[in-house]
């Protein structure tokens, strides 16, 4: 069965520091991969997606992610974090019928 693992439940980072969120997936074929962000009390917003082609994808809000087939990973990065990046981040993989299977999420806290 397809699955998505986000190993880090909670990450604290200083404002201006870099951020990397890990995501590993288990899937038989080449997956479609997504990162979503959820601010407190809000719905999920798409940050970026990978379907095929260039394995480094750029998203909104200065985020990027790299697809590594050999490691079954799709890690999210941001070079310099802003206080507004405090949120919960979800990695997801598309299964059949365009359904998404989500990881458990990583909560990011930004300290001044």
């Amino acid at each position: 069965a397809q699955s998505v693992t986000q190993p880090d439940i909670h990450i604290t980072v200083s404002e201006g520091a870099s951020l990397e969120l890990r995501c590993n997936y288990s899937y038989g074929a080449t997956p479609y991969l997504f990162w979503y962000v959820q601010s407190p009390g809000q719905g999920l917003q798409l940050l970026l997606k990978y379907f095929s082609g260039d394995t480094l994808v750029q998203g909104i809000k200065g985020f990027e992610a790299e697809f590594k087939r050999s490691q079954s990973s799709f890690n999210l990065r941001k070079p310099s974090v802003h206080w507004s990046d405090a949120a919960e981040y979800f990695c997801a993989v598309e299964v059949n019928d365009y359904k998404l299977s989500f990881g458990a999420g990583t909560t990011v806290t930004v300290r001044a």
Partner: protein
Amino acid sequence: NAGVTQTPKFRILKIGQSMTLQCAQDMNHNYMYWYRQDPGMGLKLIYYSVGAGITDKGEVPNGYNVSRSTTEDFPLRLELAAPSQTSVYFCASSPESGEAFFGQGTRLTVV
């Protein structure tokens, strides 16, 4: 630019009551989904629809029902509410790209 609209935003139900969570999208997407979100568990798919008149079960369908009479609307029905259904519910829609657009969520408490 409404996108996906969910109502209500909050609701408290007593055990055994029933209710319908409403979801409407104005993007003409064929695919629609209901997820529930519980702390530390991510989002779990309850039901989904690939078009008007077609629905199917997701990972956690027990205790819920759906219908899809139009492209725009995808209501979720809870019959005989139980404390285990206390959760935040998200409706989403998607074009055939798989990129889902989410509503703001409905926070439901069953007491």
